């Protein structure tokens, strides 16, 4: 038995070595995976593969316009000039679509699907591809690093710190009070994937709060169907008088089975800073088909924001929350520099939506910028 397993293993190793799979070849750095860049499409596909493998030198070398910028510029254009979601994202897949071609040049669209710790995002670049003998090479449309004009932006961030009671304090000695938060709207929605509980939570206190919302679906007989919490479609840090949407998903639940819903807003004191201010400008609700909310984020502070989480609350004509959507920016937010965003809205709900409210939650990495 042992001998036969050993023999089989040896045979499989030999087969794998002699006839490696495509992915094994890619990850071993095999170059014969790449096609000859004999067509514009093949040239861009090769470039996409090299970006996916993070073979920056090869990708940069293949560019027709590499004299216009350095390899570092090219890499930073793809991974971000500042630390952001792009920095640690990996190119999961890409699509190449010819737009226009002649005998010596072509336009090809490269649609790159990245995966990051908070989910996928897509970027699109339209590449000009030129013929060079029997090969084609792409011009990389480099987006140059945004330069913020030299200036002094005064900042006087507010900050709250918390000192809790000590372990040795007497029974009866006061502790700091948890922030007072209140659910100001709540609305269950039946979706194909289950029940979704939407709503808004207000921090009505004068201190910042770390918040979360838990919902329990109860049947008509009062028994518990399921308990879920808000996870990422909520701003967990709420400053005084700030309102966040929340979105709680109950997969496979049916609204007709639900008799009532028990809501539990949870809050704890947390050290926090009031800043930076992120303005949402020129926001527009774009109707179906392809319903989206588009706009621009403007960091009004003086410090780079590495990641911004955009939370969109969508209301119907009566002001009731009908959906909550979110999006993370894949670019860092430089001071005073608009960054566009697009948030997709479910097509079937788009007609009901009459207004929206956007908030952002930001993350800055100390010592990086």
């Amino acid at each position, binding site marked *: 038995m042992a001998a036969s397993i050993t023999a089989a293993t040896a045979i499989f190793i030999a087969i794998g070595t002699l006839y490696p799979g495509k992915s094994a070849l890619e990850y071993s750095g095999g170059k014969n995976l790449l096609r000859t860049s004999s067509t514009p499409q093949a040239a861009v596909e090769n470039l996409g593969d090299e970006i996916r493998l993070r073979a920056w030198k090869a990708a940069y070398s293949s560019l027709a316009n590499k004299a216009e910028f350095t390899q570092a510029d090219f890499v930073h254009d793809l991974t971000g000039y500042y630390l952001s979601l792009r920095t640690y994202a990996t190119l999961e897949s890409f699509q190449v679509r010819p737009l226009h071609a002649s005998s010596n040049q072509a336009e090809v669209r490269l649609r790159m699907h990245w995966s990051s710790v908070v989910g996928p995002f897509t970027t699109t670049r339209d590449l000009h591809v030129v013929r060079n003998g029997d090969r084609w090479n792409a011009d990389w449309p480099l987006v140059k690093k945004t330069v913020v004009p030299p200036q002094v932006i005064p900042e006087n961030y507010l900050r709250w710190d918390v000192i809790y009671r000590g372990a040795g304090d*007497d029974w009866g000695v006061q502790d700091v009070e948890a922030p007072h938060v209140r659910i100001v709207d709540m609305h269950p929605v039946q979706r194909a994937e289950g029940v979704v509980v939407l709503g808004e939570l207000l921090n009505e206190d004068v201190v910042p709060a770390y918040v979360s919302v838990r919902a329990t679906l109860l049947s008509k007989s009062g028994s518990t169907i399921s308990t879920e919490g808000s996870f990422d479609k909520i701003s967990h840090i709420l400053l005084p*008088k700030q309102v966040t949407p929340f979105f709680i998903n109950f997969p496979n639940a049916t609204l007709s089975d639900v008799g009532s819903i028990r809501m539990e807003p949870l809050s704890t004191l947390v050290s926090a800073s009031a800043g930076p201010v992120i303005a949402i400008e*020129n926001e527009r609700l774009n109707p179906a088909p392809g319903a989206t909310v588009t*706009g621009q984020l403007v960091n009004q502070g003086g410090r780079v924001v590495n990641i911004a989480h955009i939370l969109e609350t969508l209301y119907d004509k009566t002001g009731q929350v009908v959906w909550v959507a979110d999006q993370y920016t894949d670019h860092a937010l430089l001071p005073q520099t608009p960054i566009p965003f697009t948030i997709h809205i479910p097509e079937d709900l788009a007609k009901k939506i009459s207004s*929206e*409210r956007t908030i952002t939650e930001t993350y800055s990495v100390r010592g990086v910028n």
Partner: protein
Amino acid sequence: MKLRFACLISGILLAALPLAYAQDGRMSLPTTVEAGSAFSIQSSGSGKAVLYIVGPGQVLKRDVQLGETASFPTGSLYNAGHYLAILVAGSSTDNGWFDVAPASKPANLSFLARPSRLSIGLHNGISGTLYIFDVYHNLITKPTPVSFKLSIPSGAVQQRTVTANLGEATTEMDSGTKEGFAKFEAQVDGVSSTRVVEQVPGNPCGLKMSAQPAGNRIHLQTSPVRDCSGNAVPDGTIVTFTENYNGTQSTADVPLKQGIAQVELPAHPGATITVASGVVLGNEIHWQK
């Protein structure tokens, strides 16, 4: 032979006499002893015996001479509760129950004041619960008058006198109209405990902003934000500016700094600009420049 047999029986009886007396040993227990105070237990009979006193968290063992008074000094029994006394003399025992009551003088107070932070102007918003303990941390259960006093920042004082029932006294107080730290004090028989309750401003009231052109943008700024009692709303409170223009919207959540919130948004002639904080709406501006 008969004489020797009688002597033997008499000797046995004499030898057994103390034991017989001890078996008759009885004790006289106090009904109640105040925690920590001295007390005594009188026994009857003769001979030696051992007295055990067993109670909550305490056991005493004392060799006693039957017929005498066993005295226990101050601090011997300090845990309030129901105690069992057992007198063991040879094979005979006597037992009985007595109570150790809390000392009558309060020495320690546990004062729970809730919440430690609340908005101004709340009726019965502050609750205070007091537990009264003696020097040995026994809950004093006898009815005891308790004085509660809330000194609010405006200088006004609310006072209540409550009789503690089974060691607990509870009261409720109103928060004042002025922000600041209120002193909440409970006092019993010369012993007091103080807590601090922070009274914070309420929702913004009469929220008002003004707009000024700033190049191709509008500079929006609130007036100093105050609540309806005139208290300054704390810095860090979020004020939301919203500008609606021709189907587009620009918004910013801005924290108050030094009492005001300010931001710059794109300038669009014909835009409508609103300001809000939490659930409170402020004024509206129609920008025409």
